[in-house]
């Protein structure tokens, strides 16, 4: 280590004053050090304008995991997988074992499996659009639900709990050391590979629903944190992977981790809206 430092010091001494001068010039050339014109600051760019990845369009669910829990409605009490399980509490198990889809339908709660904490794992399609410059809208054909992601700062207005709750969103941009945000290369968005950033979505104020169609519950205390990442492959396939953490102090023993995936579709030709079904 000492030898390395000595080497660097020797190098810099060889470069002498010129290096130091160049370094200082380099510092002064950074955007933060630029002189600013007198006048009102321009308004900050909108969330839509700042988007580091293009989520808009149609996406189809890719049911590569938990096929038997997702493609069909599992039987009552079929909760634990062959090797893996949702980390539910005893209370949750008791609720799941009392699942009655006819009762849910009669009570007007056929959409309990289509709430935000379960919706992204239901086989179906997403249609993602910008509702306005600060609001991303995600519609699903399965259950005909709508999630609203708000980028505006501050807490969303708290109201009655809903199936999709209230979602606060922000872009996560690539970082360089010490947490500073790196500027996006002009050609980064849309290039092959990982898109330069993620979408973070935190959802609260959820109406109690089901993590699985057969009545595995989540409560009104649930908080769901998602990171949406888009991967563009050379064969032209765009993948959307949503790293999801669901926390529920009432029905989960620990944070529940999933990562559902979707594939981009060229258009809405296969969009097939269907209402919620409790069965």
């Amino acid at each position, binding site marked *: 280590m000492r030898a390395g430092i000595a080497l660097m010091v020797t190098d810099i001494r060889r470069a002498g004053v010129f290096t130091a001068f160049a370094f200082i010039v380099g510092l002064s050339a950074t955007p933060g050090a630029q002189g600013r014109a007198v006048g009102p600051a321009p308004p900050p760019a909108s969330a839509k304008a700042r988007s580091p990845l293009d989520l808009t369009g149609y996406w189809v669910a890719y049911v590569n995991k938990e096929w038997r829990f997702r493609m069909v409605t599992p039987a009552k009490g079929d909760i634990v997988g062959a090797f893996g399980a949702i980390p539910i509490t005893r209370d949750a198990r008791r609720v799941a074992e009392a699942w009655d889809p006819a009762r849910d339908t009669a009570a007007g709660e056929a959409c309990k499996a289509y709430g935000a904490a379960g919706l992204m794992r239901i086989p179906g399609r997403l249609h993602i659009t910008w509702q306005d410059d600060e609001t991303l809208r995600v519609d699903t054909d399965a259950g005909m639900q709508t999630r609203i992601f708000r980028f505006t700062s501050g807490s969303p207005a708290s109201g009655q709990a809903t199936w999709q709750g209230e979602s606060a969103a922000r872009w996560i941009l690539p970082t360089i050391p010490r947490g500073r945000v790196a500027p996006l290369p002009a050609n980064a968005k849309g290039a092959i590979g990982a898109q330069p950033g993620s979408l973070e979505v935190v959802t609260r104020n959820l109406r109690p629903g089901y993590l699985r169609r057969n009545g595995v519950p989540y409560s009104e205390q649930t908080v769901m944190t998602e990171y949406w990442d888009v*991967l563009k492959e050379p064969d032209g396939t765009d993948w959307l992977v949503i790293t999801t953490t669901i926390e529920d102090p009432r029905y989960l023993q620990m944070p529940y981790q999933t990562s559902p995936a979707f594939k981009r579709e060229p258009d809405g030709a296969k969009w097939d809206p269907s209402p919620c079904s409790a069965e």
Partner: protein
Amino acid sequence: MIRDSVVHFVLVLLFLAVTPASAQIDLTGSWAVRIHEDLEGELLGDYTGLPINDEARARADAYQGAYLSMPDRQCIMFTTHYIVRGPQSLRITSDIDPISGRVVAVGMSGAIDRMPRTIWLDGRPHPSPLARHTAAGFSTGVWQGDTLLVTTTHLAEGVLTRNGVPSSDQATIREYIVRHGDRLTIAMILYDPVYLEEPYLRSQTWVLDPAMQVVPEPCEPTVEVPRAAGEVPHHLPGTNPDLRDVADKYKLPLEGVRGGAATLYPEFRKRARTERPAPAGAR
């Protein structure tokens, strides 16, 4: 003289401080797996969620679990793509060039039957196609923003799942490793022209757990079941009696249990609804 050296050294440190590093995110540490999503392929004959073709299905149908009890099979390492959906915690390390300070390689190892792998970040090319294929394969990575994109070639033949669904030595992987706080997600896309109908994405999330020790377990082959010389547990084509078990147990359409790309999309759910319970007569 000493004062000049100190000034220059401070300048070097400042210069480094404003220079973007080639590796933006530290992936190192112990990452605990969370098996909250049921693993695929744990039951014999269960190929749900796998975009496999007829060749893969035929190989898997011939598989017997006892195959892995043969002394010469017990210590076969799982191939790299298995880690994403195997019940494996991860230990990730990095090799740093002491002069440049750059991360030249990332090491990734698990606890059970996993060959430690190295992901080279120093720009080296992949070897000749004729070079040796291994369970770990040969991996190179590049940073794209905060995501490490890894390309793996030179994989040995292996399995996608523990119930014998195969992967070939022609398979390649493109893998996206992204860290969100104390969560690590790996999304791996497997391209296998021999056994897959289409590219296959697998993903898994791990949680940072500094207290966890991920120590590789040694494997020493032993005779678990006495067998005649040359005996290899298997099923001849059309004789596997277990292929309906999953469909019958969970009342699933047999077509879905047999896998294939068409079964992975929502359209299949409508058929699954109409085809339950599983039709009889497949045995």
